[in-house]
């Protein structure tokens, strides 16, 4: 089904577009719903975007639920391992 669930947050960072050009990303949207490309009925989809740059300024990920959880765990582990002073 289309879950209709979308969780959004502001972000500050950069992403690399398929064309090889880096761009600043300001918005993130996460949702668990039908993927466009991944071979699964539902995936955790993550869009990192710069809405000011138009619809195409988007890094899109479609990850199975287990894969998404592993990425979350990896990110969390990396953040936890970094000295607090570097994260301010």
């Amino acid at each position, binding site marked *: *089904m*289309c*879950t*209709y*669930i*979308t*969780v*959004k947050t502001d972000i500050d960072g950069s992403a690399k577009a398929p064309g090889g050009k880096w761009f600043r990303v300001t*918005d993130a*949207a996460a*949702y668990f*719903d*039908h993927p*466009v490309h991944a*071979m*699964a*009925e539902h995936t955790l989809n993550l*869009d990192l*975007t710069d*809405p000011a740059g*138009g*619809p*195409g300024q*988007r890094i*899109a990920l479609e990850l199975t639920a287990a894969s998404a959880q592993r990425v979350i765990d990896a990110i969390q582990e990396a953040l936890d391992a970094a000295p607090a002073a570097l994260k301010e």
Partner: protein
Amino acid sequence: MSDSLTATTVHLAGEDGSRVEAYLATPGSDEPRGGVVVIHHLPGYDRATKEMVRRFAELGYDAICPNLYSREAPGADPSDAAALVRAAGGVPDERLVSDVKVAAAYLRALPHANGKVGVIGHCSGGRQAVLAACRLDLDAAVDCYGAFVTGTPPAEHPLNVTNLVPLLPQLRAPLLGLFGAEDKFPSPEQVAELDEILTANDKPHQFFSYDGAGHAFFAVDRPSYNVAAANDGWERIETFYAEHLGA
């Protein structure tokens, strides 16, 4: 029946003054015919949806699919447009109804139109097809596994979707419902609830639920594709539209 057809992009005059892109496919014959408005699913105005539009033309109908995201993301890749609109809160129901109204009027004004127009949608479009048939003068509606026609949508998230239970007594067209028995949204219980409500309100409808099929069984490019269910479903659609949209 000829299998010649023409498919092209047209622009509709939206009731809000917007120029709404749409994909139009028309049969190559001069026979009078009905029309079909195809509502694309939440993932967008994509190739799979346009293939369905052409299939309806091959079946002998004028068919059109308005790009529900053309206001926010004209010319964008369908998946990028879908992501943008989703993040912005989705397509409001009122705007959907208006766009289907304009698309139906466009079909009725075509040279060989017989005046009858049906609507069809899959997934989110299934719910929107039922919505349109409750609000507009249409001659037939097909709901392919639309979630939240009944049932309770998630709250506290940007896409503010409501169920259609309060509107169902106003359904103005016969409804064909095609569902997967293994689907969870809509679940067999939610389909049964819809069946009961329509029966209680004397609304003509035919429902078919396919064993072994889950959600999105018509989607030929997805792992959910179910050949048997999709083939039977297309035959049901052909029969249903021939009965209600025929000359």
